[in-house]
């Protein structure tokens, strides 16, 4: 079983296990390699294991996926401050603005999240900047601009670390959806 099997409850030899292994073996293998490269890389660089897992806990929490959140929480240390932020930061997406023009009629308003004063010290400035960026990527990715990346640089993230952080939130957006989708399908098989 790989991580997606574990999170979706796909048993070895089951109908969906067979589809994953026989029809899309390379996608199965490399979804797992993506996970391994993000959460157990040979070299973490300046983006620590604890930070990666804390961000994953926040992302899974924002999706309302408690079992996936618990999976990542094991290596995230104390998540009390993160849990408190998830409770106030959770909303519905995707929202956001389009470039000005004909699509502006489709602009949808929504909150711009900032880490609360109460938990800011416990989370720390570097992770706080990451959480604010991650919230935008989860709920309103079309609002992203170069200034969002500047906020991360200002908080001490390097360009390479920002690439990895971006991959981490984007990959989890994929993994969480695959797991949710396969769970529904498994229940209907």
């Amino acid at each position, binding site marked *: 079983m790989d991580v997606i099997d574990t999170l979706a409850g796909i048993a070895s030899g089951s*109908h*969906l296990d067979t*589809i*994953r292994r026989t*029809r*899309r073996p*390379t996608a199965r293998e*490399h*979804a797992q*390699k*993506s996970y*391994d*490269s*993000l959460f157990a*890389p*040979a070299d973490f660089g300046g983006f620590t294991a604890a930070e990666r897992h804390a961000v994953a806990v926040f992302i899974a929490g*924002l*999706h309302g996926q408690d079992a996936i959140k618990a999976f990542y929480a094991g290596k995230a240390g104390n998540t009390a401050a993160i849990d408190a932020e998830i409770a106030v930061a959770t909303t*519905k*997406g*995707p929202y956001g603005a*389009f*470039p000005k*023009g*004909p*699509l502006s009629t489709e602009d949808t308003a929504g909150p711009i999240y900032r880490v609360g004063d109460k938990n800011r010290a416990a989370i720390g400035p570097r992770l706080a900047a990451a959480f604010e960026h991650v919230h*935008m*990527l*989860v*709920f309103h*990715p*079309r609002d*992203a*601009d*170069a*200034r969002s*990346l*500047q906020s991360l*640089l200002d908080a001490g993230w*390097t*360009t*390479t670390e920002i*690439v*990895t952080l*971006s*991959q981490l939130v*984007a*990959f989890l*957006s*994929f993994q*969480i*959806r*695959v797991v*949710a*989708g*396969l769970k*529904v*399908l498994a*229940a*209907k098989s």
Partner: protein
Amino acid sequence: MTDKTIPQSGHVVPAVFTRDMLDWLPWLEPVAADQMSERQLASLVDAARVKSDYFRLLARDPDVLEARTRTDKDIFYNADGGLPRAERELAAAATSRLNGCIYCASVHARFAATYSKRTEDVDKLLAEGTGADLDKRWNAIVAASVALTETPISFGPQHVDALRAVGLDDDAIVDVINAASFFNWANRLMLSLGEPTPAKA
């Protein structure tokens, strides 16, 4: 050297969804083409991607880039059973339309139109959005992609029933889940690391 963002200005900003060719301008410095390590070059999978700022930026974390790319290619190009290529591309285009990724939507709307020959329906999806009435089968695939893309995820048993009712077997439904989910990965990278502009003629 302190890292910096790259201010992009003076370019045309596409303000509608389109099947036209677009370029993409990075907000962070890609690895220079002549500075790429062997590992970074290998992580591109397709050597021609060394011309792309997007892939040379992602090559800063080569292991993740290579795994991402091989996942992508199997979901969309593996012809062993499952959903026809055109409809995998439809799921990608619908996801991109809902998230608002004009660049991704342009690429995958082109592929969907090419493989399906249903250019008018693809253009209707781009113009009207994911509520566009296409036909029963495409509506079910678009609705499933939307439900997988929303946060919280609203995909449920009714979507599986609707996909089965229009002829999809479980191999094909797994492809819908993979394709829509993968574009929730791709859209977030494309939207947050740079921006589109019309391709130079």
